[in-house]
């Protein structure tokens, strides 16, 4: 089966500086893959490279076998890639419902989309007419994910969904992500600093250090590795 996402020898960065060096990465269709590493390792840059939001200097990026490097961000998105960025990227002056509506910009199946989104996140239904900028951190994260789900993506990229959130909310979100993967077959590429959590739902993991992949394999294997446990799992 063709992997849903494949990065081959990708070098990328911001302007003339290279952040990623020869990154090889793949996400099998229907899998949850996590990208781990310390701050500055290049995890966010990797996600951005997939959506062509950074300068890619070398390598190939394929979505379900088709090359997408060089395409405009919005065209990549229209092929079924949803990206929940660092900082969530909600439209703060618009309402919750308007944010979700924009998530369905490509599909235009608003009614079904709303049903599904509010089904996963009932809290958002209560706040549908509220301005997004006034939501709490956890609610904004839910909104960002819900907006991404409105597009029924083949591949969902998530950049640190647990950042700054209370443990209970994070638990809820991860439960929902697992459900989405299971019930809708959406592949996930998850960047997380919280390695424990990520390795809990992922099937594969990649470890980045200063822009290179230093370790990769099944999640359980990575979780069991002694050096990883010491450096990233606090054990």
């Amino acid at each position, binding site marked *: 089966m063709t992997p849903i996402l494949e990065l081959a020898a990708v070098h990328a960065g911001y302007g003339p500086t290279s952040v990623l060096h020869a990154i090889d990465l793949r996400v099998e269709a229907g899998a949850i893959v996590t990208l781990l590493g310390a701050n500055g390792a290049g995890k966010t840059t990797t996600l951005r490279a997939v*959506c062509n*939001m950074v300068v890619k200097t070398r390598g190939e990026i394929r979505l379900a076998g088709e090359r997408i490097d060089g395409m*405009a*961000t*919005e065209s990549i*998105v*229209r092929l079924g890639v*949803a*990206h929940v*960025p660092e900082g969530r*990227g*909600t*439209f*703060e*002056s*618009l309402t919750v419902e*308007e944010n979700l*509506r*924009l*998530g369905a*910009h*490509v599909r*235009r199946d608003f009614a079904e989309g709303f049903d599904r989104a509010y089904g996963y996140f009932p809290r958002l239904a209560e706040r549908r007419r509220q301005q997004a900028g006034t939501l709490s951190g956890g609610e904004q994260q839910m909104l960002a994910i819900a*907006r991404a789900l409105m*597009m029924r993506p083949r591949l969902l990229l998530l950049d640190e969904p647990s950042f700054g959130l209370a443990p209970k909310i994070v638990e809820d979100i991860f439960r929902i992500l697992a459900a989405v993967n299971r019930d809708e077959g959406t592949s996930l590429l998850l960047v997380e600093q919280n390695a424990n959590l990520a390795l809990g739902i992922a099937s594969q993991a990649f470890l980045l250090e200063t822009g290179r992949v230093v370790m990769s394999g099944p999640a359980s294997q990575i979780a069991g590795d002694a050096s990883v446990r010491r450096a990233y799992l606090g054990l």
Partner: protein
Amino acid sequence: MREFLHQLLSGLASGAVYASVAVALVTVYKTTHHVNFAQGEMAMFSTYLSWMLISAGLPYWAAFLVTLALSFAGGLLIHRLIVQRVANQPVLTVVIVLIGLVVIFNSLAAWIFGSSIRAFPSPFPASAWYGSVFLSPHEVGMIGVTFVALALVFAFFRYTHLGLAMRAAAENPTSSRLVGIRVDWMLALGWGLAAIFGAVAGMMAAPLVYLEPNMMSGVILYGFAGALLGGIENPWGAVIGGFAVGVLENLAGAYVVGTEIKLAVALVIIITVLVFRPTGLFGRRVVARV
């Protein structure tokens, strides 16, 4: 007192033109963060187009609507073909491109249509029930048409999906791309809409200032001042700012200095306001995170 009321209301009438131009400028600014210095010349060109259609026999309102459609297309194309190419360059580079457009439109208009001053018809009769000794029917009509245009655009932005997408693209282009919005086309649409407002301003002003290639050169500055007075990102502020400038200009001209330097006086007043409220009357202070 009568005289004052007359000047006030007259100011509102010219204010309607400035408000239209101000809204056009704010529309472009909100979507692209550039001030379209060429808005006035584009409006002038649109007005000439409508004059050609009317001269060819088309009834006024038909010509009006066709002109709006053509102006929309024109604005869109100019953005896609020319302005887009320098979109990522320093702001002053874009300013020079816009200046280039000003010069091109002005020169083309003089060449194609000639520089002679022409009369332009008003769709409103010389005397009607809604006219009065304070405001001619045309002036009342001007204000009415402006408000209708504003209401339609407001409804467009508020209630349609495309309007929502344009608002999103203006607020956060990156996030907009991440939901699949083609941001470049949204910018071009912004230019198209702005061109419509410019055309409305031109066609409403022409019966009063007469049709000639330089007809909008004074108007653009007042429109700009009105947009800034209201706060450059705020369409409602632009409306109020435009009307305020119109009234200010008229009152200054009548009571203070006479018509010669009323322009300077009006601008001095506006600049004084900006010194005390640098983001305009209704603008939001942007707090910069260091």
